[in-house]
């Protein structure tokens, strides 16, 4: 149930068995079915979710159309970090697009763990730093790269997601219409 969570944790910060047990006591195992929400816009995001199994997406809805902000597959974490950290209402929805098994870290568990376990603090610092870097990379790519290159970068960086997620969602993530994405894919295929 917690295998992948601690595997990923230990890749960044090694833990003794005792430390692992101590941290485990604060975690919430949670299953979601396909299409079920972990979070809806307007609620306060009360947990960071680590994906043991399944796929989730985080998205906003602007004047009727969906914009995907992030995907999460096995080994990734997902949350509305802005809402989680500030206590303000969430601006995004988070939904399972496949049945999912999650490990949740609630806000209160998070705060308590920061106090009692320095290795958790280190791990969280690395996670949040990584999330910031990914966010900036995405912004830069959206502003400066041509769409074709954006798609190619995405497939190179996240080959697993390309396999798992329907094309129209990838188009939404890249800020393209499904038709544009399909044209780009055809063009790339023809060139190869």
């Amino acid at each position: 149930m917690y295998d992948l969570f601690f595997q990923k944790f230990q890749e960044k910060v090694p833990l003794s068995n005792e430390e692992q047990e101590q941290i485990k006591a604060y975690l919430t195992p949670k299953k979601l079915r396909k299409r079920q929400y972990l979070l809806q816009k307007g609620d306060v995001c009360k947990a960071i979710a680590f994906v043991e199994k399944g796929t989730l997406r985080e998205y906003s809805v602007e004047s009727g159309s969906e914009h995907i902000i992030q995907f999460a597959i096995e080994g990734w974490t997902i949350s509305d970090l802005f809402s989680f950290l500030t206590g303000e209402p969430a601006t995004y929805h988070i939904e399972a697009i496949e049945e999912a098994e999650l490990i949740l870290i609630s806000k209160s568990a998070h705060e308590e763990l920061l106090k009692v376990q320095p290795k958790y603090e280190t791990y969280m610092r690395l996670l949040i730093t990584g999330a910031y870097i990914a966010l900036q990379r995405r912004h830069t790519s959206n502003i400066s790269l041509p769409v074709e290159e954006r798609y190619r970068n995405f497939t190179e960086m996240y080959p697993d997601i390309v396999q798992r997620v329907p094309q129209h969602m990838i188009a939404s993530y890249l800020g393209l219409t499904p038709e544009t994405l399909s044209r780009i894919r055809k063009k790339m295929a023809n060139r190869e």
Partner: protein
Amino acid sequence: MHRAWSVGNFALLEIKIMKTMQTIAIIGASGNMGSAISKSLSKGNYRLLLCAREQDKVQAVVEEIRSSNPAAAVEAIDCSVEASWEADIIIVAVPYEAEKEVAQKIREVSNQKIVISISNPLNSSYNGLVTAPDTSAAEELQKSLPNAKVVKAFNTTFAADFSTPVIDGRQADAFVAGNEEDALRTVSELVSTAGFNPLLAGDLSVSRTLENMQLLLIQLNMKYNYNWLAGWKILHQ
């Protein structure tokens, strides 16, 4: 949406109704109390997973809920572990004697979750409790589930009260006891959805008093023939 109410002598409790549907597992949902709780909570913005040994009985409860409220998010599930794994809140609606066994099964998947203890550990002749005076069913459940947030609720209300929470013109109080403020707030919202007036009684050890209060109410019910439709109401200024 905000809703607030005064809770006895305790601070004003503000509840923010969540949009994200919370999942509640009700273990023992085919019993008197389990089915009454399931029916009344199906009115709220919750997804209910009804769990019991007798699948046909629990399926009948599901059908009954659906026929009166077709929009209700409710289903029968045959495994307490699966139900609790999916749940945000777990209601253990089994007799006190069966609680330990349930706790053992759901121990891992109930980690950090709200677990509601509704039982009253009555002896077989209904003239006393089987628990020692320095503990309660709720505290015993907490010992079996050390990483869960056990809350005492729905133990001072009879099953019939759920369809008639306003008795003789007055809304019955329903006492809530526990150690975590967030969990108390969530459970109070559940109590309010069920139609009762939630009253925060104190920490989990107050369950000893609450369980004895229901012992008294059961004895009074049998003595004065309240027909199992009776409840508590704190009169105050």
